[in-house]
Structure formats: structure tokens, C-alpha cells
């Protein structure tokens, strides 16, 4: 067996393991009753998807995916879940019609996307890409701060506005403190 063939088989094995893992963990996100378990499953999904990105040679975006998503965003989610002290949903969680409708819509959309994927099955193998030979961080940086510089500024402003909005939302006003708490019937 030549080294090229070994690389091909190794890449295929890696892809299948990671892809099956990503689908399994995302299924766990949907099916887990406990929000903390859902969030941890989503962290696993994010890391596995980042591995798929890195496999195609998008090293920078795979790293950013792990840092920003699995790191910052999911920690924020876990923080909020623990702040609100959410318990696992008990009793009847699955509404039959809701489950059927959800499964139907998901199967329809997923089926369309899956068959659409068949149109690209005659492209080159992932190992034939210029992965690793191409400097993707440099290329991305040149594009971002060259052609897309105004867009980067706008996105920075968007982050600033979001931060200001969250600060305003987080403020406790006199009015919100007076409202009924802990499951009481709201007085009309």
C-alpha cells in the first residue's frame, strides 16, 4: 500500500468517525431532558464540527470555532443555565403531535439537503485539496482587512451595540422588582 492510499483511507476513517460523532451528539442536544446535558452535548458537537473544518484545511476557522463557540458562547449558556437554576424537565415532555410535526419537517428539510448533497459527490477527494500547503490565515487576513475592511468595522459596531443592549436589558428597574415572583398567578 502506498502512502497516498494510506492517507486516503486514514482521512476517510477520520471523517466517518467525526461525522457520526457530530450527528450523535447533536441528536443528544435535542433529546436530553436536562439543559446542562444538552449544553455539554452541544459543546461536543461544536468541537467535532471544528475537526471537520480543520480536515478540509480551514485551520483558522476551526480554531476560532473551538475558541469562540465551544469556549465563550457555550460557557455563557452554561452560566445562564446555572444562574437560572434550571432543573431537568419532568413529567410529560414529549407532545406526540409536536414530535411528529418536528420529525416530519426535519426529515423533509434534511431529505432535500441530503439529496442536494448527491450533486457534489463527483468532486475531488478531500486529500487532493491544497490543504496545509496554503496559508489560510494569511489569505483570510488579507481579504478581511482589505476588501472587507468596511464590513469588519460595521460588525465591530454591531458588537458594541449588542453589548450596550445587554447592559440595558440587565438593569433591574423598580417596576420589574414589584412584579409577582415564583409561580404565583399574575394579578390582572
Amino acid at each position, binding site marked *: 500500500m502506498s502512502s497516498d492510499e494510506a492517507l486516503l483511507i486514514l482521512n*476517510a476513517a477520520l*471523517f466517518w468517525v467525526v461525522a457520526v460523532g457530530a450527528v450523535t451528539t447533536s441528536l443528544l442536544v435535542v433529546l436530553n431532558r436536562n439543559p446542562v446535558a444538552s449544553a455539554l452535548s*452541544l459543546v461536543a*458537537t461544536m468541537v467535532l*464540527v471544528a475537526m471537520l473544518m480543520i480536515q478540509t484545511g480551514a485551520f483558522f476557522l476551526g480554531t476560532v470555532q473551538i475558541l*469562540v463557540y465551544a469556549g465563550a458562547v457555550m460557557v455563557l449558556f452554561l452560566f445562564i443555565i446555572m444562574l437560572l437554576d434550571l432543573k431537568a424537565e419532568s413529567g410529560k415532555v414529549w407532545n406526540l403531535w409536536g414530535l411528529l410535526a418536528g*420529525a416530519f419537517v*426535519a426529515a423533509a428539510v434534511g431529505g432535500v*439537503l441530503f439529496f442536494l448533497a448527491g450533486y457534489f459527490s463527483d468532486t475531488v477527494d478531500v486529500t487532493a485539496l491544497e490543504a496545509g500547503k496554503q496559508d489560510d490565515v494569511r489569505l483570510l487576513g488579507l481579504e478581511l482587512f482589505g476588501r472587507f475592511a468596511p464590513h469588519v468595522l460595521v460588525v465591530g459596531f454591531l458588537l458594541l451595540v449588542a453589548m450596550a443592549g445587554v447592559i440595558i436589558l440587565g438593569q433591574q428597574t423598580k417596576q420589574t422588582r414589584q412584579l409577582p415572583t415564583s409561580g404565583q398567578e399574575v394579578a390582572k
Partner: protein
Amino acid sequence: MITLGHYVAVSGILFSLGLMGVIVRKNVLVIYMCLELMLTAAMLAFVAFSRFIGNIDGQVMVFFIITVAAAEVAVGLGIIVAWFRLRRSTSVADINNLRF
């Protein structure tokens, strides 16, 4: 042999699972996580197309998606916490008023 079709198929499966979660689940936070799952699936498709076509624009798009998603998560969780303070619940069944 792993081609572009495989990546798009995985992306489609992840997207539809996220969509199913949004429809089926009742906890607002879990629905939000499923939205993130759908965004991630779209990002995987963008990266795969970008790499196989050899055009960096898809990766620039993913960079912007990550940034906007981070802002969206911050604002969304802020709204959920503010709403939780009023009603002590995160179930979508309890979100039935436009004014408090």
C-alpha cells in the same frame, strides 16, 4: 473517498436536527442551543464549499457569522434572563403576553 457531497450531507443532517429541536423542545434555552446548532451546520457547509471551490469568500462569510452569532447569543440570553425575572419560567408555553 470523501468528497464535497459528504460534508454537505453532514451539514444537512445537523441542520435538520437543529430544526427538529426548535420545533419539538419547549425550554427557551434549549431552543436557543438548537438555533446555534443550525448556524454551525450552515458554517460547515460554507467552509466546505469555500475549500473545495478554492475561493476564500466563504470563509470570510463564516467569520462574520461567528461574530454576529456571538452578539446574538449575548442579546438573546439577556432577554431570556430579563424575562425569567418576571415569570420565573423558561418554557415557551408561558410566553403568551406581549406586555407585562
